[in-house]
């Protein structure tokens, strides 16, 4: 018995050691970037490489934030991601409501019409989407605006599917009871469905925020002025000035670009696992 216990503790210690090594390896690139983001140009180019913190921490972050417009890009991207997150969730929710709690002709067809768009990532039709949105934007005089960055992304097959699935799992008696109480579909959505859907809402919000935060090719082709540019493309233009770039600055920019999605992830990861990764099984 005692021997068994000892073997168990030994195994657990080995597991801990292995996990710590893996965690460190996965984290290493970011730790490296973090250390370099605080170093001056001379410290960065020192050979052999210095892995500790440097002496230019605050200065580097201040420089990229103000001089290289990181603050502007982050503000723009937060706004764009926020708008898309809100409306996508709202529209997906109402679409789910329409599909689950109503009967109407061609319902199946409508669902497949939505589902089929899963096979159409933005990148695939980038040329035609670019032509279309540039034409519309020119007519309305909204080139280089938040509108061209958000409107094409306000609908989501993922969202509709998640809500449809979640609403279907809510006992049907509830809607009956609501109808007997005289509540219309909007009241029903507001006071019964939404309070019961927080995990799904959080899961979708997390996926959509990270999806929008990581947008790269679309802002790259459609936005032609710095004032409305998004963070990933901002990072790209910083990288492109490589010969003049101070790598410490670039790493500070990379760290800043990581922080908002990481915060949202930390905040919502539990609901995400419940609402998406695990929830789909049940």
């Amino acid at each position, binding site marked *: 018995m005692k021997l068994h216990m000892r073997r168990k503790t030994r195994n657990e210690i080995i597991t801990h050691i292995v996990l710590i090594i893996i965690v460190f390896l996965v984290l290493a690139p970011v730790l490296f970037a973090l250390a370099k983001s605080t170093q001056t140009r001379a410290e960065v180019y020192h050979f052999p490489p210095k892995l500790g913190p440097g002496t230019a921490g605050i200065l580097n972050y201040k420089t990229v934030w103000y001089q290289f417009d990181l603050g502007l890009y982050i503000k723009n991207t937060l706004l764009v991601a926020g708008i898309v997150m809100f409306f996508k969730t709202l529209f997906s929710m109402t679409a789910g409501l*329409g599909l689950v709690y109503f009967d109407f002709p061609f319902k199946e067809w409508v669902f497949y019409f939505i589902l089929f768009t899963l096979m159409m990532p933005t990148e*695939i039709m980038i040329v035609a989407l670019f032509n279309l949105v540039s034409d519309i934007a020119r007519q309305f005089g909204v080139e280089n605006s938040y509108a061209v960055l958000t409107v*094409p992304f306000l609908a989501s097959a993922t969202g509709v599917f998640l809500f449809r699935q979640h609403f279907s799992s809510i006992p049907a008696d509830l809607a009956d009871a609501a109808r007997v109480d005289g509540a219309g579909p909007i009241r029903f959505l507001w006071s019964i469905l939404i309070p019961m859907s927080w995990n799904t809402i959080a899961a979708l919000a997390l996926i959509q925020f990270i999806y929008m935060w990581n947008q790269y090719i679309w802002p790259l082709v459609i936005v032609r002025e710095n004032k409305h540019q998004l963070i990933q493309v901002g990072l790209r233009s910083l990288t492109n000035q490589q010969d003049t770039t101070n790598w410490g600055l670039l790493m500070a920019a990379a760290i800043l670009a990581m922080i908002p*999605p990481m915060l949202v992830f930390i905040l919502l990861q539990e609901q995400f696992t419940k609402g998406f990764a695990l929830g789909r099984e049940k």
Partner: protein
Amino acid sequence: MSTARFKGKWLPWLFLLPTLIILLVFLYYPVVQTFRLSFYRVAFLGLKTKFSGMENYLNLLHDTGYHQTIVSTVLVAMAVVIVGLGLSLLIAMIANQKIHGANIYRFLLIWPFALSPAVAGVVFLFMFSPGFGAVNYLTSVVTGHELNWLGEPKLAITLVIMASIWKNLGYNIVFYLAALQNVNTEVLEAASIDGANTWQRFWRVTFALLSPMTFFLLITNITYSFFDIFGMIDILTKGGPLDATNLMIYNLYRDAFEYYKTGLASAQSVILFLLVVGLTLIQFRTSGRQVYYGG
């Protein structure tokens, strides 16, 4: 499923309207346009278009550069799937054991989920830069000479693969951990009593039970290596050296927005689209409930 509870002829359409309009205008219409444009020759800035039949497709068929692009794309996708999923499953299984602080380890393993491909590209670009990158320093100490990660075709594609796998680890581990938690430990115990060794228990029981999840991740990882990787390529290698990392999506982007060959780029879009439809149909066929609804 008789859950239809509310009456109304126009109301459901009203609820669906925003989604349907946006999908129609910004997804279906551009896809149809892409198909149409792929049969046209489009002069500079799209001012003149001329029907050219299969010309764009034939050009791609005879272009050895494009063949190379397809080979590289398949290579990267295979590496991301095989190495990436293997590593993720291994790590998830280690992290799934009942130990103290399991939740902390889990979090520390899945955070790369929130990374963007571009950020991964910037960090890897720096780590592997000649002269002062830390990894480059290490390889030069170990092998005695400096490896030119960004200048040597084979090394550059290896670098892209490593960065892609690292960035997607968190995503894969999230889903494998979720699936592992649903594996019934009683089945494993029963197998153990029946005399199955560790390897057999893993292969015959755990891996078999995880196969729907593996299949789901297979498709999402292929899609990832086809499209999401764009930002990473654009920052790390710009398709070089010698077009070694010029993957299909990057080639499409350059033809469309650097060389203004709209028709040719559209033909490439159609090829990619058919690939994605094929993959998705296979997935629908084999495991309906495991379909990915990302994006």
